């Protein structure tokens, strides 16, 4: 391997590391309601963000619209989201400018339902895209698919989904919202490592 090839290999490793950190930091910021910090992780050229059945929000302006309502919103202490960013598979494009990532997210939650507090389990899959601009990685597209959202007491077999949560100010309705037990398979962003 000559120096140039070696440099390319090292850059690839660094890219993967940086993207993994970006995704995990998104998770930590989200869990602690640091929404302005979340917004700043997105590229000015963001394609879209789509979370469960909230709908599609396009462009950086859409990112702002999606999260901005939450910025500075006081969440009571008991309302919480712990979304564990797990098992990332990152594939960087050969030109090193874009990347895709798939992640699993088991989550603990607690939020209000009508006048009551409800503790819930949630599980989902991310299929995200990232872009490198000026030497740094940003989110270009974020898409989180819900697998189940169930009450702590009853479980996903009995209650796969607690309610629908479309956002009225989305640009378009959700593109793929098929929770358990639909059998829906969220497409893989990566190629088979052996067969291609």
């Amino acid at each position, binding site marked *: 391997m000559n*120096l140039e090839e*070696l*440099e390319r290999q*090292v850059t690839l*490793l*660094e890219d993967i*590391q*940086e993207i993994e*950190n*970006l995704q*995990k*930091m998104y*998770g*930590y910021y989200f869990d*602690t*309601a640091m929404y302005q*910090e979340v917004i*700043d*992780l997105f590229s000015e050229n963001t394609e879209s963000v789509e979370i469960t059945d909230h709908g599609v929000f396009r462009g950086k302006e859409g990112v702002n619209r999606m999260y901005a309502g939450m910025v500075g919103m006081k969440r*009571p*202490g*008991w*309302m*919480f989201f*712990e979304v*564990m*960013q*797990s098992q990332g598979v990152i594939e960087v494009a050969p030109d090193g400018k874009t990347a895709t990532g798939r992640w699993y997210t*088991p989550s*603990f939650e*607690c939020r209000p339902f009508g006048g009551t*507090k*409800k*503790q819930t389990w949630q599980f989902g899959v991310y299929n995200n895209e990232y872009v490198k601009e000026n030497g*740094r990685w*940003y989110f270009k597209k974020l898409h989180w698919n819900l697998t189940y959202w169930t009450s*702590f*007491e009853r479980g996903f077999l009995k209650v796969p989904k607690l309610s629908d949560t479309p956002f009225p100010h989305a640009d378009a309705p959700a593109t793929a919202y098929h929770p358990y037990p639909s059998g829906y398979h969220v497409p893989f962003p990566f190629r088979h490592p052996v067969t291609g």
Partner: protein
Amino acid sequence: MNLEELEKQVQLAEDIQEIEHLQRIYGYYFDNNMWAEIVDLFSEEQTESVEIADHGVFYGKKGIRRIYWDMFSGGDTPRQSPAWMQFVVMQIGGVVDVSPDGTRAEGRWQTWLCEAKPYGAYPRAEWLHGYYENKYVKENGRWFFSKLHWNNTFCSPVEDGWLNLPLMGWMPLPDADEPPSAFHTYPYHRNNVLYHYQHPITGK
């Protein structure tokens, strides 16, 4: 990039990898009650402290031996936990930052736990969640823990959940050097372990 710069980059990638393994290995040892092995993961000279949930703060390598060996293991006459007792601590979401000189590092992790342990006379199964903010130090080419701080978000019986019973009971250890520094479980858990890193884009 010249050879020297490249070497530095590779070194950084290797350091992060080794620290991630150190943390996960700690987890696997912990789950299997391998306390002597855990003691050896901490730096002899540079360990600041270990603090786990509300057990209190233990300073220095001496403190490491006291909490893991004397307290958890039962000292030279190791306790045999019954087989049904279980700790599974999943080490998830590590963000590791190495200092520019490559000798120190910090890492944030979150943990999801499935446990079974006795409460009074009764075996109970629990769900737990928590955050680590840890420090690591490189000595003689190897990474060690220099500080470990884990805080509980909740510790709840599987029958009740975190909303109804966020904390099953207090567990301060009597011979800690100091009481816990930041133990606030759900719903007061936010910011009980502060972020060591700056925002990657804005630097704040």
